[in-house]
């Protein structure tokens, strides 16, 4: 039920992000969603792509440090209160969001948001109980 995200350590240097996207382009990897968190010296690029293995190998071959993390891709109603509905039920159960990012879902009216929770298992259980749709990597790739 989890989606797999790859993350990459990049220094805050001119052109570094473009190098990563060029590597993925050359490896014919499609980026589905992305977020970049940064500090003054470095950043962490988090990606949901259509082919994790190819992406990971291509990046490692070029000397990048690549990590893999299980995240939850959650369908969010594209209407007022959509995101709040999800956050409320998690918050009531003491589940914290470490980070989150969104991408548009071209197939339907709803958005998909990627969540990294402090307690992934508990979050999944709560979301399932609440009948909130959790999307798998495969489904994301097929979008």
């Amino acid at each position: 039920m989890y989606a797999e995200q790859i993350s990459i350590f990049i220094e805050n240097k001119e052109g570094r992000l473009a190098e990563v996207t060029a590597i993925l382009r050359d490896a014919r990897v499609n980026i589905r969603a992305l977020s970049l968190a940064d500090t003054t010296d470095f950043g962490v690029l988090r990606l949901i792509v259509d082919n994790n293995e190819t992406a990971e190998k291509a990046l490692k071959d070029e000397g990048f440090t690549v990590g893999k993390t299980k995240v939850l891709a959650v369908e969010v109603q594209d209407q007022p209160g959509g995101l709040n509905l999800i956050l409320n039920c998690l918050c009531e159960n003491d589940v914290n969001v470490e980070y989150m990012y969104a991408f548009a879902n071209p197939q339907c009216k709803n958005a998909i948001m990627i969540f990294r929770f402090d307690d992934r298992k508990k979050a999944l259980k709560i979301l399932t109980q609440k009948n909130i749709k959790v999307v798998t990597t495969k489904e994301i790739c097929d979008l």
Partner: protein
Amino acid sequence: MPIYNMTYETMPKEELKKVQFTRLKATLDRVYATVPFYKNAFDQAKIKPGDIKNLEDLQRLPFTNKIDLRDNYPYKMFAVPMENIVRIHASSGTTGKPTVVGYTQRDINTWAELMARSFSAAGATHSDIIHNAYGYGLFTGGLGAHYGAEKLGASVIPVSGGNTKRQITIMQDFKPTILTGTPSYILHLAEVATEMGVDFKSLHFKAGIFGAEPWSENMRSELEEKLNLKAMDIYGLSEVMGPGVSIECREEQKGLHIFEDHFIPEIINPDTEEVLPYGETGELVFTSITKEAFPIIRYRTKDITSLNAQPCSCGRTHIRMNKPTGRADDMLIIRGVNVFPSQIESVLMESKKISPHYQLVVDRKNNLDTLTVKVEIDEALFSDEIKSLQNMELSISNDIKDYLGVSAKVMLVEPKTIARSEGKAVRVIDNRTF
């Protein structure tokens, strides 16, 4: 300028040599009898203290290295029982363990006298007020200068390092006339004073004694110009005693007089260990000839310099050493703290259980030394969360501060970005100019 100990500091060379030889003999007899390390070293070199017939024979004795001090950690180099030790100091070792030194009451008195001589050489008298900005603690700088100032009969302000703004207020209100500290910290003080709108020229300093780290003639000009005082270089290391092994005189400010009635200097080729004649540049080696608790025989300081036997206009007959120009090893001196790259490696291995590629970058920003430790990220260290990466930087930085006593900024960098020459990582980039 007054000379504190006229008898010894201006003793004719021949007479001084006789004093040195008598004291050397007594030291050798004592270390052979009381310190197993020296007995073994002399036995291995097949030499007995009795074989030393003149000062030149000193060259036949084996050297002592910093690693020997570590191997005998903490007290095995002491030549007196612990009940006779009144003070213990320590400095950085090449790995986790510090180098420990001890002093008897007589050693403390000798050290105080040599620091009093140093203050006198800088032009200080009993009517001066000495602002002592050397750190107090295990580091020999603070207490060494303090006891010397008291011995001289001057008034000492034991302000220590740090609290820079308060120091400037003290300088304005207490009106000190002599300033001591590490040159980089003193320049930092000057900058903070400027920021506070305090002009050093309105203060009352006539001389400064600066040491514990190498500094250049350019820095002297800067210090003298900014602080409106005469800047004297002082040299010392805890293994030999502490500050006050040698001092520049106010008259010449050209080379540091080594107190030869207490220490015998030699210059050697660091590779062949051959003794070089006066004037040639090599590694400085010291033998102490009056110390009781921690006598040291032919200690390799790793400092690169040369000796000048020419007479000096100040009247002192003691030989001068030129300002050290470098090191025969990879030790860095950062704000007066000795740092070996291997110590940083130990910290990384202990705190993160890993052996990453790292590099030390030393800069001098606003006259203050800064240390940046670059650590190459790898999969074991990496996290998708910024928070944990930043916490890791912080925890390494705290560990370095805890173990080495020096503040460092830790910076994670991408793999393979630290320059490697012949496959070996370049461990140190020192951008400072001395």
